């Protein structure tokens, strides 16, 4: 406790004419001098200018001030400046109070100078009442274990781990499957490259495998996590072997899976109705059946049909596949060598003449006789139709692909949720019965194959993981970031980050930069080597606490736990000082340091003194 009598200095700013033009500043200074505990008061034209700062510094020494009030503008921009000056003069920076006379007074009362001056006096009186009761506070440093954990070995997890490793920190990369690659392992090719998808990402996998900083855990799971930023004790089941270690930060990159459209558009009934990912697998395995026409139906199970959200990527995946069908159909036909996918009764043998033409063409290309890709012999022959609600070809490449697909005669038919197309069989033919909005009539289309574009949904493991890490899932079931605009890869809990499709549908490019972003954020505490705890944290009075647990429920940062006596205990490193617990505690057992009930009540009473009297 600070035993010496309080000696308060009050500095009132004119802010040019911003305050001085509407508030009688000298009168407020004179008034401040009359307040209990105030031993010095003055005014500055600009308190934030060097001479203004010097006046604070000098007064602290000359008048042995042990409390400082600055009445000027906004603490958001200027509090650190004035607190810094207090510290320079040897005063703990928490023995300082800011009174906002500009935004809270002069700017809103420009037409009533007398009242503005009165209000300025009220605000200064409240600030002085508060500063009298302030106590010095300390910020503690907590060491950070310079190691990271990345959960999920898909694109996002690999990129995040690689960047963390390339910034010099050891990182565990935990993947539950027996190889890295995640969802990409299902894909035929990626949007922008004609190459095989796994072939495209092979350089990345190679870099991950070659990096000694990455501790690669395949067939592995995270068993448990305890602790807080800088100090997470983790247990990994690594292919049957238990690893126990401590890491400073955690990145969640658990990805997503495809929604299964049970009961929709004949998916359960007809063999040639497949999902978008199943279609990719067929193409990848070169096991596509012989078809003359194919239709894609977009927004199956998304945008209100079952899931409320738009899955962002399916339009562009459908366009890519439509282009593949139009341009490279014969390359994906079943050759009798690939694995037969059970769902589709593939007539695995392509007509001999197509195979022969293919062999000849490949030979010509290998001999360098054919440089440019010859136009596909089937171009225009396979009818491709995409039933859609809105085509989400955002940005540059997607829109250009969309344009290209239309040039290649891919048909786009728009439907509304009120008028969804219907799928049934007539004889052995698949029929799509749909409403043509321009012709204003019901139409029928016979197709050989239907691909349903279903949304990505969060990994079924996400729920358990969210409980283990104490990080939230959103209404859509995906992990919920701290702030949708400005903190896209942070969780509200310090030290845990999220990227890729674990936080919502994203294409591969987006997964990559999100993962690099998560690596950037995650390496900040690792590079610093410590975290500075907030000085303003909740404090529990254990003699008043009944252990009801209400505070644990409301804490948004999971910073309160029960100790061995069954009463609440604050994890100082995780506490942000938001005050939710203090406001909720039914016993009044929790106070916020620097904003104690006593300090707040004194401030409020002083502000309302005139009214009370």
């Amino acid at each position, binding site marked *: 406790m600070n035993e010496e009598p309080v000696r308060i200095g009050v500095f009132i700013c004119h802010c040019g004419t911003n305050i001085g033009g509407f508030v009688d500043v000298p009168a407020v200074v004179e008034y401040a001098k009359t307040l209990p505990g105030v031993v010095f008061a003055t005014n500055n034209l600009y308190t934030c200018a060097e001479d203004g700062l010097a006046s604070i510094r000098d007064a602290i020494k000359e008048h042995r001030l042990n409390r400082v009030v600055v009445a000027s503008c906004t603490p958001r921009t200027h509090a650190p400046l004035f607190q810094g000056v207090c510290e320079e003069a040897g005063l703990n920076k928490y023995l300082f109070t800011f009174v906002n006379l500009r935004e809270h007074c002069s700017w809103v009362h420009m037409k009533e100078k007398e009242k503005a001056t009165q209000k300025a006096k009220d605000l200064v009186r409240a600030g002085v009442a508060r500063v009298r009761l302030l106590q010095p506070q300390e910020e503690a440093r907590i060491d950070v274990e310079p190691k990271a954990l990345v959960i999920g070995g898909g694109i996002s997890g690999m990129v995040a781990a690689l960047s963390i490793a390339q910034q010099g920190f050891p990182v565990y990369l935990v993947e539950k499957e027996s190889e890295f690659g995640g969802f990409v392992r299902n894909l035929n090719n990626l949007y922008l490259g004609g190459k095989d998808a796994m072939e495209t990402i092979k350089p990345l996998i190679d870099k991950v495998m070659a990096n000694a900083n990455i501790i690669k855990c395949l067939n592995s799971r995270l068993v448990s996590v305890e602790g807080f930023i800088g100090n997470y004790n983790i247990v990994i089941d690594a292919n049957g072997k238990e690893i126990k270690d401590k890491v400073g930060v955690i990145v969640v990159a658990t990805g997503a899976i495809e929604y299964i459209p049970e009961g929709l558009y004949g998916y359960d009934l007809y063999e040639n109705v497949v999902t978008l990912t199943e279609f990719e697998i067929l193409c990848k395995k070169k096991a596509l059946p012989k078809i003359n026409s194919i239709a894609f139906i977009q927004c199956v199970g998304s945008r209100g049909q079952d899931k409320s959200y738009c899955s962002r990527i399916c339009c562009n995946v459908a366009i890519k596949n439509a282009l593949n069908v139009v341009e490279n159909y014969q390359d994906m036909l079943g050759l009798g060598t690939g694995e037969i996918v059970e769902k589709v009764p593939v007539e695995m043998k392509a007509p001999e003449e197509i195979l022969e033409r293919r062999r000849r063409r490949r030979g010509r290309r290998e001999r360098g006789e054919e440089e440019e890709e010859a136009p596909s012999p089937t171009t225009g022959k396979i009818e491709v139709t995409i039933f859609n609600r809105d085509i989400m070809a955002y940005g540059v490449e997607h829109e250009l692909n969309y344009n290209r697909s239309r040039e290649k005669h891919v048909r786009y038919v728009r439907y509304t949720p009120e008028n969804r197309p219907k799928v049934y069989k007539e004889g052995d033919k698949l029929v799509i019965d749909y409403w043509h909005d321009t012709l204003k009539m019901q139409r029928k289309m016979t197709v050989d194959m239907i691909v349903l574009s279903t949304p990505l949904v969060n990994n079924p493991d996400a729920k358990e993981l969210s409980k283990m890490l104490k990080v939230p899932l959103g209404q859509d079931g995906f992990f919920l970031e701290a702030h949708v605009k400005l903190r896209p890869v942070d969780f509200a809990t310090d030290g845990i980050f999220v990227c890729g499709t674990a936080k919502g549908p994203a294409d591969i490019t987006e997964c990559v930069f999100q993962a690099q972003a998560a690596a*950037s954020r995650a390496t900040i505490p690792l590079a610093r080597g410590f975290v500075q705890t907030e000085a303003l944290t909740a404090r529990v009075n254990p003699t008043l606490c009944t252990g009801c647990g209400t505070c644990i429920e409301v804490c948004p940062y999971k910073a309160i736990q029960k100790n061995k006596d069954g009463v609440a205990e604050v994890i100082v490193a995780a506490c942000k000082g938001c005050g939710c617990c203090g406001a909720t505690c039914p016993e009044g057992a929790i106070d916020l340091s620097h904003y104690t009930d006593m300090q707040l009540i004194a401030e409020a009473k002083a502000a309302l003194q005139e009214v009370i009297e």
Partner: protein
Amino acid sequence: MERAILVIGGGVAGIQASLDLADKGVIVHLVEKEPSIGGRMAQLDKTFPTNDCSICILAPKMADCYGHPNINVMTYSEVIGLEGSKGNFRVKVLKKARYVDETKCTGCGECFQKCPTKDIPNEFEMGLTTRRAIYMPFLQAVPRVATIDRNHCKYLTEGKCGVCKKVCKRDAIDYDMKDQIIELEVGAIIVATGFDVWDPKIASEYGYGRFPNVFTAMEYERMINAAGPTGGHIKRRSDGKGPKKIAFIQCVGSRNVQLNHPYCCAVCCMHSTKEAMLAKEHDEEIKATIFYKDMRSCAKGFYEYVVRAKTDYGVEYINSDGTVQEETENHDPIVSYDVAGRPERRAFDMVVLATTLVPRPGTAELAKVLGLTLDEFGFIKSKDRILAPVETNVPGIFIAGYCAGPADIPESVAQGSAAAAKAAEVLLESRVFA
């Protein structure tokens, strides 16, 4: 090898990149062309899909950036030269004279109330109002200091006036200030120069510039902002009246092969939806209609946001392009569109155009200085769109935000962080990153 990093562009992407690096102990030089950092986000009223106040969430980051001991913010400056390679770049920065001593000026505003040169179009307010020859671009500008516009200042152009010097109580005005060239040594560079709004006058079918009550979306953002030129009131240019029927037209100049903007700007569907909602919040009686090609509401919470606009705000969505004519007597714009192939016409009180967003002017010059490749639309090309989206053809130079192609705020922020990660990797590669 230098421990420092150069960030070009002080919008939200550049700010995020700078903060991430500086928090790791890296020295960052943040070069911004305008007198204040903040970029486009500072101009926006609210942000979708949460309707957070844009400047309210950005201003703290701007302040953090300026006050950060590891960040050297150089506003009113441009990069004009580059030598060296990854790990050892030598950069020439032109620091334009602002004729105001940054260390003395407190941004009190005395000078720009007294400056006699009044009629300069205010760039920050999209020309909807004017500013003086000495000015601060906006209320929350960082740094909070005045700048003299040398092309309009009477003293600098004609040698007479000197009012600002007389009224400045801090003696911060210095008419003799000269442009400076500053040389920096850095290990890596992040380019985040953002976008500009394409001038829709070129596409005459939308009537912008011909009809007074046709606005661009950016003008509308300023108008509906409480700190904007109309104090937050939506007003017709012709008579100052508040509109009751507003049409928003999408893809103005974009998704248009003839105008060489075949791409989709990726943010306009959402900003128009937001603007339509704000109109309703502003005045219950306003009926907002959005004419669109595809409603691209495809990121987290976006589709739900559009559903909310329809159900809770009564926003009408019409799937059609729209062109604009005008009722000559009262200047009411008339939108021609089609419903299921049949042409229709409807009169509105105001039309707001979602114009194409293009790279900032000067991107090509900067790319030349830095040796970067551009795509055919002027965006800076990534090294590999799949696996290296924030890397460029020049090792050690990274990109973030709209200058690399259409991106919304969260994507720009994530790319800012991503570029920071790659830049930090460069420092480690050369073993100087402690």
